[in-house]
């Protein structure tokens, strides 16, 4: 009887223990990767390749998503504000939501899905095909050659993509306000500039920087610890994407809490 009751507790304990061990391993990996960022060689050529992969090649999806999120948010907010005849605030409400929360969060989700999954899959394939071992055997540190450029590129590109998301979101919101709620361009601009201050934008960009760092680190960590064959690559990629989404959400709460309380 005691054994039957103890079993779920044991399983629950094992589950949390695995999570804690995983978190510890991730933090060690993050520390090693950050230490490598500060070391030579800088690997500018590799950094530019990753800047293009994470940044330029993600721009289209960021632009499209940003526009539609802004437009839909503008429609939703505008329809509620129209009850109080306050449609003129559609742009400022959308802008505040975008700068503080929506732009960094949705950009992070998109990058985790597009670039993060590709990074994990590529590194996992290299791991299971002994390419990482081959690199080590040649005296080359995979953290320096593979991880460092990704970390730098992701951290640099996330806030820039976030800015694009905000800009396109505001254009989407403007289109909604102008064509659906008949808000004039002057009023729209005046209210946006009145309510959104630089601090809101900076708060969002700070989040984006941390999201970029975490997405690249989680993606690399999952890829470099892949085991097995094709199934191992698939599992690592799934784990990488899920861990990234959850990590971004947890980090978002933490950063927002710090920003609100200071």
């Amino acid at each position, binding site marked *: 009887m005691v054994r039957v009751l103890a079993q779920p507790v044991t399983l629950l304990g094992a589950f949390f223990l695995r999570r804690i061990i995983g978190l510890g391993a991730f933090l060690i990996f993050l520390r090693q990767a950050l230490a490598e960022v500060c070391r030579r060689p800088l690997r500018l050529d590799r950094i530019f390749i990753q800047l293009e992969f994470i940044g330029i090649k993600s721009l289209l999806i960021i632009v499209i998503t940003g526009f539609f999120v802004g437009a839909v948010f503008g429609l939703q907010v505008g329809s509620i504000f129209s009850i109080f005849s306050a449609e003129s605030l559609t742009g400022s409400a959308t802008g505040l939501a975008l700068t503080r929360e929506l732009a960094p969060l949705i950009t992070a989700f998109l990058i985790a899905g597009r670039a993060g999954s590709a990074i994990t899959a590529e590194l996992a394939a290299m791991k299971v095909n002994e390419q990482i071992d081959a690199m080590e055997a040649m*005296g080359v540190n995979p953290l320096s050659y593979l991880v460092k450029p990704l970390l730098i590129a992701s951290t640099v590109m996330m806030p820039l993509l976030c800015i694009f998301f905000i800009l396109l979101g505001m254009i989407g919101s403007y289109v909604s306000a102008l064509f659906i709620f008949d808000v004039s361009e002057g009023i729209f601009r005046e209210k946006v500039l009145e309510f959104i201050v630089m601090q809101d934008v900076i708060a969002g960009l700070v989040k984006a920087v941390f999201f970029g760092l975490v997405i690249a680190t989680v993606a690399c960590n999952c890829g470099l610890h892949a085991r097995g064959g094709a199934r191992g690559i698939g599992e690592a990629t799934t784990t990488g994407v899920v861990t990234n989404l959850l990590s971004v959400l947890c980090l978002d709460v933490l950063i927002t809490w710090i920003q609100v309380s200071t």
Partner: protein
Amino acid sequence: MIAFENISKKFGNTTVLDEICLQIPKNKITFIIGRSGEGKSVTIKHIIGLLRPDSGRIIVDDEEITTFNTARMRQHRKKFGMLFQHSALFDSMSVLDNVIFPLREHTSLSRQAMRAKAEESLARVGLGDVLQRYPSELSTGEQKRTGLARALVNDPHVLLYDEPTTGMDPLIAEMIDNLIVKINTELPEVTSVVISHDIKATLATADQIIMIYKGKAVLEGDPATFRNTRDPVVGQFMAGRVEGPMQFI
């Protein structure tokens, strides 16, 4: 010379190397033989520092590498070239970029000088016309030779071959065996360590043979020693017999 002194290595509850002692002479071709799963690959991964032993000492050229930290170990690895069982070529790079990779990482040669050295290394293994092709566009034999060219390009002191002919047709296997001999003849200062299951090739090619069984080196010697051995385990393995003292699961 490379020496293992009482090296033990466990993976979980499985003991792979059990206080193994062996010596690999300098500038010779040494073959390590044994059944699958007996720790041959684990042995060469210890030599290059990809695995660390649980206990014991490994001496390479009078240096105890088991005490090296990670940075020192990376320096140590520059003395080696390794051909992996499945070649382990970087599939996102062309053949030329694969071979240039160690040079780009460890030398300050100009791009032209690196290219010339890579072409020389590829020519040594008989590959002169595949520079811009990708590993997926090569045959298995060409992949192995590209891996060998990459291992050779940085003028290594020691060449490690992890089952270079496993899974290959007899002609390609013989070509790779001949390449091992050719490289050792052309570069007499290089020490070669080869893992193999191919007894015929081992006896024909090796200067020194080491057989690993149950985590220990059961016999070390030249091909004649192995041909004339009365050790029942070695004899069974050399003859490829199922019946005998060697246990199968």
